[in-house]
């Protein structure tokens, strides 16, 4: 990675440059909209209004945000250990199984707040378990984790179809999904909270799993930056040789980081499964695992950044749906394009504007320039 020599103020590094990158991504997206023959300004208006303009829109935005926080955190934790976990999709799918099993075991007997801790454990456990084998193979056999996690996404899909069709769907049901959970398996919506602010969340599925997501952020922050294990994870990710020198077992760290990563991805299932649909459906993850990669990259693998990036993508998803609703020529794939451009400009091309900005700053702060300005004022 090219380390910039000219140092820029922190607010430029973490504020201005990412903002600029995202802006460019949106400008290019605007060109695509224009190319299709629609008005980009109008599109932006609909998108922003759709995401934030009314209670229900916000509710949906928060719902998607919750998914992306979980998967973004998952990718980020693995990143810190120098691992690229593309298996969030499959881990979340399995997490759904853990959630559903907990919910179905308890929903008829206890209220949701009793079920929730069990569901959290189930989701985390199953998600982590699905990350374990790729982690082990990477640590012990050097099998490329990118490849194995991709394979495990496919394997997860097969496993879940088999379970849902042949084992988990109630008899006589025509749908490959579990039964609908009773009240004890349903997480409360945030409607009440919205009403406190005088907003109507309508039927938006935002639910208290967003609280779990925020708690997970706090956990990840403490875990990565305040614990010995986190220290070891970062050391391993940044310099594996130094980690070995320091007596850190890279095998252990690889496995632990992937387990935590998988658990976080698994937790994502709480939101759609218990929070929204109250049942486990085929393919319910719908790409959130992959979006997590973009979210983690944009959020620079830091929980605060991840929350912001997840919110941005949440807005894109909800606003994009409204956009597709109101501008039929812009199909749902527009969102994928915007997403791609954001990853491209904020991720792969993140340094593109830095030299220019650095030059601008050097110019502004250089003594000659200061003198020139002074002289100008004097004269």
């Amino acid at each position, binding site marked *: 990675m090219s*380390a*910039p*020599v*000219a140092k820029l103020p922190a607010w430029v590094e973490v504020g201005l440059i990412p903002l600029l990158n995202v802006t460019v991504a949106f400008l290019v997206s605007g060109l695509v909209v224009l190319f299709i023959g629609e008005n980009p300004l109008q599109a932006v208006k609909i998108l922003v209004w759709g995401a934030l303009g009314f209670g229900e829109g916000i509710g949906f935005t928060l719902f998607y945000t919750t998914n992306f926080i979980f998967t973004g955190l998952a990718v980020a934790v693995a990143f810190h250990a120098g691992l690229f976990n593309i298996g969030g999709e499959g881990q979340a799918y399995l997490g759904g199984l853990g959630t559903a099993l907990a919910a179905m075991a308890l929903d008829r007997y206890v209220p949701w707040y009793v079920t929730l801790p069990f569901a959290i454990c189930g989701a985390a456990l199953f998600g982590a378990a699905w990350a374990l084998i790729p982690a082990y193979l990477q640590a012990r056999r050097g099998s490329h984790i990118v490849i194995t996690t991709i394979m495990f996404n496919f394997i997860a899909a097969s496993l879940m179809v088999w379970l849902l069709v042949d084992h988990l769907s109630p008899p006589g049901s025509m749908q490959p999904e579990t039964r609908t959970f009773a009240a004890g398996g349903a997480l409360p919506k945030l409607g009440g909270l919205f009403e406190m602010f005088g907003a109507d969340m309508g039927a938006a599925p935002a639910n208290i799993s967003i609280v779990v997501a925020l708690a997970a952020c706090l956990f990840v922050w*403490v875990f990565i930056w*305040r*614990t*010995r*294990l*986190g*220290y*070891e994870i*970062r*050391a391993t990710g*940044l*310099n594996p*040789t*130094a*980690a*070995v*020198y*320091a*007596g*850190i077992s890279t095998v252990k760290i690889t496995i632990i980081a992937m387990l935590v990563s998988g658990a976080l991805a698994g937790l994502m299932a709480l939101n759609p499964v218990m929070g929204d649909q109250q049942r486990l459906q085929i393919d319910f993850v719908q790409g959130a695992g992959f979006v997590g990669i973009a979210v983690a990259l944009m959020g620079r693998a830091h929980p605060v950044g991840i929350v912001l990036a997840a919110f941005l993508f949440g807005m894109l998803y909800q606003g994009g749906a409204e956009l597709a609703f109101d501008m039929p020529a812009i199909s749902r794939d527009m969102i994928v394009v915007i997403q791609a451009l954001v990853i491209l400009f904020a991720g792969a091309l993140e340094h593109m504007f830095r030299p220019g900005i650095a030059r601008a700053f050097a110019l502004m702060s250089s003594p000659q320039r200061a003198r020139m300005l002074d002289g100008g004022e004097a004269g």
Partner: protein
Amino acid sequence: MSPDKDDSEKDGREPSRPLEKSRPGAAPAIRLSGIDKSFGTVRANRDIALTVEEGTIHGIVGENGAGKSTLMSILYGFYQADRGDIFVRGRKVEIASSDDAIAAGIGMVHQHFMLVDNFSVLENVILGAEGGILLKAGVARARAELQRLEREYELQVDPDAIIGELPVGLQQRVEILKALFRGADTLILDEPTGVLTPSEADHLFRILRQLKSQGKTVILITHKLREIMAITDNVSVMRRGEIVRTLPTAETGPEELAELMVGRRVLLRVEKGEAAPGAPLLSVERLTVVDGKGVRRVDDVSFEVRAGEIVGIAGVSGNGQSELLEAIAGIRPATSGSIWLEGGKDLARQADPARRRLDGLAHVPEDRHRMGLVMAFEENENSVLGYHLGPEYAAGPILKLDAMREDARRKIERYDIRPPDCRLKTANFSGGNQQKIVLAREMERDPSVLLVGQPTRGVDIGAIEFIHRQLVAMRDAGKAILLVSVELDEIRALSDRILVMFAGRIVGEAGPEADEGELGLMMAGIADEEAAA
């Protein structure tokens, strides 16, 4: 455009004494003027003027980081100067890439070899000079040409050997062959002897003289003033990115050069008293380390280090010293043999650096960038690396950040680490200060055994003095120190006993007063007795 006219304009910087020329009146082989180069905020070369006469060997000396490699890399087209002109045989040339330099008859052997490890010698030699779209014809021609060069310059090497499997000395030969194969008239060598035994170095110098006698020009960068005196015709001294003086070698001496390099008189000897060795604190017995490829890196090595002594391990790099240190530190598992710390149990089989640290063993690794530090960490995080599990830095699973920082501040003060900011990213400290961070971490824990690899590599003279003093002070406090260095001078200055390693074995032992030639022969693998015979 006439070079002579240009000379007079710059004469403030030109040598006061006329340089040695092999052919008076001829245009100089290389002339640089007004070369400037910055890396970000670091100004590596400033307004450099340099004349290298044709058919001479021209030495360049200067501290670490003085800008020697940068200057030569500019001449070779690897970097582009921010400003300045390059003249070859009086003609101004634009050198925008190494291609241009090669075309101008310049060849370079870099400090870090520019070879492809998994290629054969032949493939490396023809890379970039294949002589056609297809390899076949070029390879055949190159094979013949290599044979000729081998005969002419005694540069024997198997053209089909894989580079990664050759010792460094031979790799260097390949680099020289590469340059000659491309028809270089001017050959730049950047610290070529750092990796060679004295006898290999002698061989190299014979080759260089041979080249000179054929009218080729050689530019030689080295830290060893002895070599400068032995082989060069003229010498330039660099300091902080500038050439402070160029003069004929015959008219100067090591003392003058050293003073020019540092800007003050230097005392190169380390002040230390008699050693008073006590009980052995580290014992190594029949230690063997076989690496992943099945090569015996350390071969049946036995020695001990006593309290209050410094044992130096001399040897050309790549002869198993690194592996030996790593095995003792627990980074690399030993294949067989034993390691004891102060009468404790045998540690050889369990590779666990954390455990060894608890047992009182500290380790300053050879390569701070690769192993000793996490460059992206804050200074205070690095100052506990390896000790982060200690109860003083962690309460249960949670790190005590305040304690870590407080501790780091203390070390910064004691070791005069600059800038004194424990929250600064480690990459932003200079090389010498980074080394001090490692030393502070490893020494402050009051270990009973200290392993030190290349403690002063890439460190300036001032810091070297400091580090050497610290090592001697530890010895005097009754610690056992095992020192590995490729700098024979450093080994001789610090050690109470010297072990010489060659091809994974200890081939000899000597006292600090040992004769350099004798040590050199041992380092080349010619055993004590034979040398005596």
